[in-house]
């Protein structure tokens, strides 16, 4: 008796036009939209409902101690990393494994740059400031740390996945290049989403 093989893991379904992994990734991103959507909604509600004075009042621009320059730098870093991610996938699609890997490595480097900038120039100076800026300081900082922290965990997740496909995961290319390319495509979809979340976070936290 033969075990039936799962269809549409690599080749797209003839009617839906996608392979299962890609559909799954999109659904996952839909749930992520709801996750961050809930946080952005909470931001709106808490900001609108904040008291006008006292320690719980919403801080003014100078009281937030966020530099748009550092935030802007990280925005550029992430946007460029999205471009390199697309280049990695496009090169793999054109059967250029070495070049694809190079762009993947560039994406990894940029992702780590983002995390390092975030920690070294933003998180750590805030924790070590006297008095420190903490989630308990007020709800602006609470939201700032929660939202950027959750986003940072997503970046870290991306770093782990990309590192896996650069390292042990890349063996798959030699067995089934199309399957490997698909996986990079799904990783890319996720990565663009992480990028997009930041593009919302940056103006909301740094500029508004």
């Amino acid at each position, binding site marked *: *008796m033969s075990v*039936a*093989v*799962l269809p549409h893991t690599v080749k797209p379904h003839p009617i839906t036009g996608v392979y*299962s992994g890609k559909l799954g990734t999109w659904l996952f991103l*839909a749930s992520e939209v709801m996750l961050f959507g809930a946080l952005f909604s*909470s931001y709106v*509600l808490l900001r609108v409902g904040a008291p006008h004075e006292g320690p*719980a009042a919403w801080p003014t621009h100078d009281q937030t101690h966020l530099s748009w320059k550092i935030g802007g730098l990280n925005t550029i870093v992430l946007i460029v990393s999205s471009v390199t991610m697309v280049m990695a996938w496009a090169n793999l699609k054109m059967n250029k494994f070495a070049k694809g890997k190079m762009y993947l490595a560039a994406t990894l480097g940029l992702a780590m740059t983002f995390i390092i900038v975030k920690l070294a120039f933003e998180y750590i100076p805030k924790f070590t400031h006297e008095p420190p800026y903490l989630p308990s300081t007020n709800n602006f900082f*609470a939201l700032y740390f929660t939202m950027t922290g959750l986003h940072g965990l997503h970046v870290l997740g991306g770093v782990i996945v990309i590192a896996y496909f650069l390292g042990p995961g890349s063996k798959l290319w030699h067995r089934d290049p199309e399957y490997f390319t698909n996986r990079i495509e799904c990783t890319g979809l996720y990565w663009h989403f992480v990028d997009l979340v930041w593009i919302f976070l940056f103006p909301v936290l740094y500029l508004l």
Partner: protein
Amino acid sequence: MSHGSNDHHHHGPDHHHHDHPELGWWRKYVFSTDHKVIGVWYAVTALVFLLLGFSLVMTMRWQLAYPGQPLPVIGALFSENVMPGGVMLPEFYNSLGAMHGTIMVFLGIVPLIVGGFGNYVMPLQIGAPDMAFPKINMASYWVYFVGGIVMLASFFAPGGAANSGWTSYTPLSVTATAGQTWWLIGMVFLITSSLLGSLNFIVTIIQLRANGLSFFRLPFFVWSQFVTAFLLLLAFPPLEAAAVLQLMDRVAGSSFFMPTGLVVSGVVQSYTGGGSPLLWQHLFWFLAHPEVYVLILPGMGMVAEVITSNTRKPLWGYRVMVYSLVFLGFMSFIVWAHHMFITGMGTRISAFFATTTMIISIPSVVILTALVITLYRSSIRYTVPMLFALAFLPMFAIGGLTGLPLGLPAADIQLHDTYYVIGHFHYVVAPGTIFAAFAGIYHWYPKVTGRSMNAALGKIHFWLSFIFINAVFTPMFFQGMAGVSRRLYDQTLYQHGVEVQGWTIMSSWGAWMLGLSQVPFILNFFLSMRAGRKVADNPWESTTLEWAAPSPPPHGNFATVPVVYRGPYEYSVPGTKRDFFPQHLTKAEA
């Protein structure tokens, strides 16, 4: 048994040795990626949790019926910290109440009807060899399992398990004992599990249907799982966000849900303040109302399968039922604040949510009516699953109709947070969904084991359960109408509670007898695995694809990939020899 080379692809690059047909015992029966093994694990784990959650409430019911009296026999088993001299402390009562709700909803019913039945039956019904992502499926179960362990472990946290109700309303929950932190962490696991499961279900249904199985040829059960998966996928993440925010409030001292100047027991809290307790309720109910439909829709799906099999008739109004189901799923996202009428959020918002709540009752009634009309002029086979399915109809109707007054702000002011609410939603979930699940267990047991459950024991189980479950929940309507709050540890402290204490005692005895009534089921469940009558692949003479597979189905499910030629419920088709026309047979074969 040989895996094709393509099989590597979905297993990923790190498993080279899958060519070997013989998996070790652990991989085959415990850490299996087979949807059927995972489904059985889900179902069995969930049934254990259901029994546990029920035991918690059976313990509480002693305190309610006989307040302040020591619990006989079992009371001595508990530590002196929670039940000194066998008398339950109020704090422990609160923990049991919160954990009863949590365990029943998140660890019992949803994992049973979605994780268990959905995993086992849905891929078979669509003619698929497995779920679209078998490894994610396995991960989903194990993450659920860890979440369950975290929840159980919370009983041993300082101050006991979470005690702020299953809704964990703030600011009470933020200032509560350590068990609440465990609860939040446990919830994050359970939410992750349901996310992994739901996206797997959707992809499987979209991508892996057999040839010829178009969407309008899907069994109603598959449709119910499809809509349910969307609810889980999109409604759970906001609760995850809310859990993270509450965790921040508890651990990092933020004030998301803490208002300015909060005073607890005469002490001003050190929180900065500026937060909104109402925000938690919005985020929580944004999940928890769709969750109510997660609890009921798969039940409706199972009942539809059982009813068509046993009436030998097509489902009446199949398409309308599907449209209603989809509409219901959509509407369930915009009714959540009917849980919050008395929070003072304003009459305009209340009017909006009252309106949507009235609208959402329409598709529910359409589905129920279609199921009832299916019975009309049929020659019903009164099998055990059919008895449970038949009982589901009026029970769910009582649950649904008693919900209408709660959806209207004026009536809700009187009834809110009374036993009436408990009676209402338990009628939906207990004699509703759990009866549907029992129907499903008796119906699909032959598919899973190749043997049928004993009908005599099944009927004893049904009639006892049916009588006693009504004895538990009917009195709650009277208590609620009398104004007894659902949160009271001892209602006899109030005159209006004393007057209806008789109903409380009846309800408690009902619960204990209901517990005893499950003994025939448990015996039947285990004994039938060995001693049950061996049955053919299609013992109920049903039409849907799962009955075309061998019982129990092997790894990969179908010997030959099925092709579907017709709709799901072609029973008693004029001009055919038999009274059922399976989906996978051509006219000539039938």
